[in-house]
């Protein structure tokens, strides 16, 4: 059993006071272990250091104990016993829900189910966090030398500094003839669609610079948009909405959609949302070709639009400075926010659906938290931003005239300088970050510019969702799968997780109905009847005592409830008072006539 190298020290209470002296090899082993942990995650390392300080001696003893328990034939022990640690911050990334509170009313069955599911979810969380450590690619970055602003670095310098394939992603297309261009990339980021104001439409496999098709629709083009894959795209022309395939063949002319100015495609719902000059917001289900909803917004010409990729809500910007939120299920706006003093020029929402960035005629750029509908930051841009676009990793690009500026961390820290800036050869009309690439596509009066923006794209894609390297077969397979799990438009709501939550309102309603139908409450607590306890403990006196312990429980509940109600009413009253006071302090426009 025992290897010759190590003598087995039997621990007994007599010997406890004398500890073996610390050896240098033990120390070094521990350090190696700690270094390893640092690599794997800061949190864990910090924890380890703390442990090291406080419980050094104890830990060593424990380790030795472990070593005693498990002997290897070579006399060596596993330097990393147990499962590898998972860093907490990564765990947090994959966290879906908090643990449930354990209430006393739960039955043992329910408790069991809950604990099992929580265990399973924790396990999956851990595994996902472990896989996250192994992701192959790292995000790009750009750092200037000392006293060098990154915004002064020109595109040419970046292109010279990076490898040849990345350098080829910086290019200009000189297309001055057919006027400013709208731009769109497919979901995988492989294909580019250009739509010139004067009718020029082209789709390009932009990485290999292969032209897929090029047509002139001989009409003005308002907007272009890829549909779910690179085989089809929609073009909003002067009068109707057209759908073409990747060879430039006209597939559909949809006469129900007239005077469309902007479009958004909701990829998981297969919905094409359009806004028109007549003030209509229309949804087209592209999988079955049906108009899902047509909403008259009654706000005049609509040419500012974006989607919230987190919950598929459409954001519209209006001339009076409001931004409205729409879903196809409601004829009224879900939310109306007054964002700017002048008209709204552009809106963008980030990938997680947390932040909305708007720019207006008042030359301001504002950042909102759209979960709480609160303004976070407000910036002043000298000439105002005409186009906005947000990248997957949260870079904001804003076009002011013919200059494209890229900002970093607009919502967390007050930004004074742009991250990058680039001047193009005409007024910018379309701006789009390429998914999964560090590239920003700019459509302008002089054609198209593909800019390198390090740190813009998500480095690791998911092969089953959007795979830039997919083959035709894989695309077809994906198309079938995606169509199978097309989300119905009825499920679009402000909170996309609502479907997975317990519907308490309906339950309560049903319970009330049931109580009414039955004439009594089947879930009500019965009257307390003390159990008959054996071994002489159930004397009349002790039974009375037990009864008394719960005697006023019901009454206590009632009292607690009334006290709580009173508190809330009081609170509301105070708040109301505060708001009225605040309102009365504020000067209104009519106050100037007061004497």
């Amino acid at each position: 059993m025992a290897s010759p190298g190590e003598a087995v020290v039997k621990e007994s209470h007599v010997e406890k006071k004398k500890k073996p002296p610390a050896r240098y090899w033990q120390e070094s082993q521990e350090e190696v272990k700690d270094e390893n942990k640092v690599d794997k995650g800061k949190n864990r390392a910090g924890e380890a250091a703390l442990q090291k300080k406080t419980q050094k001696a104890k830990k060593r003893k424990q380790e030795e104990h472990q070593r005693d328990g498990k002997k290897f034939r070579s006399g060596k022990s596993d330097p990393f016993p147990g499962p590898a640690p998972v860093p907490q911050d990564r765990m947090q990334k994959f966290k879906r829900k908090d643990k449930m509170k354990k209430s006393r009313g739960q039955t043992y069955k329910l408790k069991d189910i809950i604990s099992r599911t929580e265990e399973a979810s924790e396990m999956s969380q851990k595994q996902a966090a472990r896989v996250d450590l192994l992701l192959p690619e790292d995000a790009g970055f750009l750092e200037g030398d000392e006293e060098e602003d990154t915004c002064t670095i020109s595109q040419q310098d970046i292109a010279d500094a990076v490898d040849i394939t990345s350098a080829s992603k910086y290019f200009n297309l000189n297309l001055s003839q057919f006027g400013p261009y709208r731009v769109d990339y497919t979901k995988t980021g492989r294909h580019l669609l250009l739509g010139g104001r004067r009718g020029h439409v082209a789709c390009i496999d932009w990485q290999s610079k292969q032209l897929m098709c090029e047509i002139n629709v001989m009409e003005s083009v308002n907007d272009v948009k890829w549909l779910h894959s690179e085989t089809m795209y929609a073009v909003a022309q002067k009068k109707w909405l057209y759908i073409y395939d990747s060879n430039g063949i006209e597939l559909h002319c949809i006469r129900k959609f007239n005077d469309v100015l902007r479009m958004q495609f909701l990829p998981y719902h297969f919905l094409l949302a359009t806004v028109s000059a007549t003030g209509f917001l229309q949804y087209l289900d592209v999988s079955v070709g049906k108009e899902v909803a047509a909403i008259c917004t009654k706000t005049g010409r609509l040419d500012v639009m974006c989607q919230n990729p987190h919950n598929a809500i459409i954001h519209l910007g209006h001339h009076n400075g409001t931004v409205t939120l729409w879903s196809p299920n409601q004829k009224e706006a879900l939310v109306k926010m007054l964002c700017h003093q002048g008209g709204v020029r552009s809106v963008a929402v980030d990938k997680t659906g947390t932040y909305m960035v708007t720019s207006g005629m008042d030359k301001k750029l504002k950042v909102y938290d759209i979960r709480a509908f609160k303004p976070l930051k407000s910036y002043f841009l000298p000439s105002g931003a005409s186009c906005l676009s947000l990248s997957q990793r949260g870079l904001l690009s804003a076009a002011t005239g013919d200059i494209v500026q890229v900002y970093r961390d607009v919502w967390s820290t007050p930004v004074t300088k742009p991250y990058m800036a680039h001047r193009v050869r005409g007024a910018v009309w379309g701006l789009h970050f390429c998914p999964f690439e560090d590239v920003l596509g700019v459509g302008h009066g002089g054609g198209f510019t593909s800019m390198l923006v390090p740190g813009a794209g998500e480095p690791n894609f998911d092969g089953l969702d959007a795979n830039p390297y997919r083959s035709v077969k894989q695309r077809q397979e994906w198309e079938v799968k995606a169509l199978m799990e097309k989300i119905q438009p009825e499920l679009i709501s402000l909170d996309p997780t609502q479907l997975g939550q317990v519907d308490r309102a309906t339950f309560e309603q049903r319970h009330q109905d049931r109580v009414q139908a039955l004439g009594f409450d089947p879930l009500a607590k019965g009257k307390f009847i003390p159990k008959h306890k054996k071994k002489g403990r159930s004397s009349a006196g002790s039974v009375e005592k037990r009864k008394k312990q719960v005697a006023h429980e019901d009454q206590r509940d009632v009292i607690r409830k009334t006290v709580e109600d009173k508190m809330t009413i009081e609170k509301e009253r105070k708040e109301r008072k505060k708001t009225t006071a605040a309102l009365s302090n504020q000067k209104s426009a009519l106050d100037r006539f007061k004497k």
Partner: protein
Amino acid sequence: MKVKVLSRNPDDYVRETKHDIQRVPRNYDPALHPFEVSREYTRALNATKLERVFAKPFLASLDGHRDGVNCMAKHTTSLSTLLSGSCDGEVKVWNLTKHECVRTLQAHEGFVRGMIVRYCGTSFFTVGDDKTIKQWKMEAPGYGEEEEPLNTILGKTVFTGLDHHQKEAVFATCGQQVDIWDEQRSSPIRSFTWGVDSFSAVRFNPVETELLASCASDRSIVLYDMRESAPLKKVIMTMRSNTLCWNPMEAYYFTCSNEDYNLYTYDMRYLKRPLTVHMDHVSAVLDLDYSPTGKEFVSASFDKTIRIFPKDGGHSREVYHTKRMQHVICVKWSSDSKYILSGSDEMNIRLWKANAAEKLGVLAPREKQARNYNQKLKEKFQHHPQIRRIAHHRHLPKNIYHQRKEQRIMKEARQRKERNVRKHSKPGSVPVVSEKEKHVVTVVK
């Protein structure tokens, strides 16, 4: 200036040759997978619909009997063997994989009332209306040999059922009393009576092997200990129970099929009220059998359907019927828990799948994975109204559908009346009696 731009090597993401499988790099970041819940919901909905599309439970019909099938017995060691006894005294042994009868013997005159295979699987016992107990060899007689029982016991009265001990050479019969027999003797080693009545079924407990339970015609279920001379206790219900079956995994629970269209699951230690009342049949329930997993059981009814109930669910999860199937008299759940066998009045034995939408045969690993995933999704979203509606919908024959509706109306009317009575009488004078308590008259020890 330090700069790094995303630049992937396509070789890391594209397969090398045509013969490789495609590479699919994954990133499980929730931000890359929006609409998680809605997509899962859609998948669950699709899975539920597909389950209904593929629900084809009927596998085969075994015909050959010349009278109604009265009883069946599972072979204890062979999955593919089934024994069935009919109302004309004929016993048939079936090969289930080939769907054919391998042996026929005329066992009794009149009904074959009960049949059971010995735990070792080498012989089986039958009881019939001719007051005899016969033991038969499992092997067919050789060429030229006569079909003869190993052993015949002549009883005084008609036997209505029998069951064999799990691991000893002891069996029990019931008729006018419950008898315990030693296989070597021609007279019972013990007889139990409790009042004068006849018994319809007797079952040994599969775990606590000395215990038995029987259904008596005085509406009671009686529990016995084989080692004692007197019965343990009995519960008297409002209507008579036809058969009972022990839960093979939690053997302190048993379920009985009742004449009042319901099934009742009891805890043997606590007979005052049943644990669960299983309602859905529209006529008397004649037989039931537990799945070997102990999670579900199947019941056969006079209303020409068989239903599958979860052990703790009040309503059935599945109902099987065909146009030709008449009153179902006996039912068995196969020992691999995958199939159900039902014997009915019109002389046929039918083979069903226990999970109607299950694919038979060996599943590829990816099929298995997909099935497990879909199952989990269905479970997760089972309470959503749309999914619930699809998952619960079953086509029923017109008369059963109308009878159920009628019974529901009657039940509602009774409840309404009771409610009104309670409303107009002194508070507390008309107590609320739960459905479980309604059907138990008393427990006698």
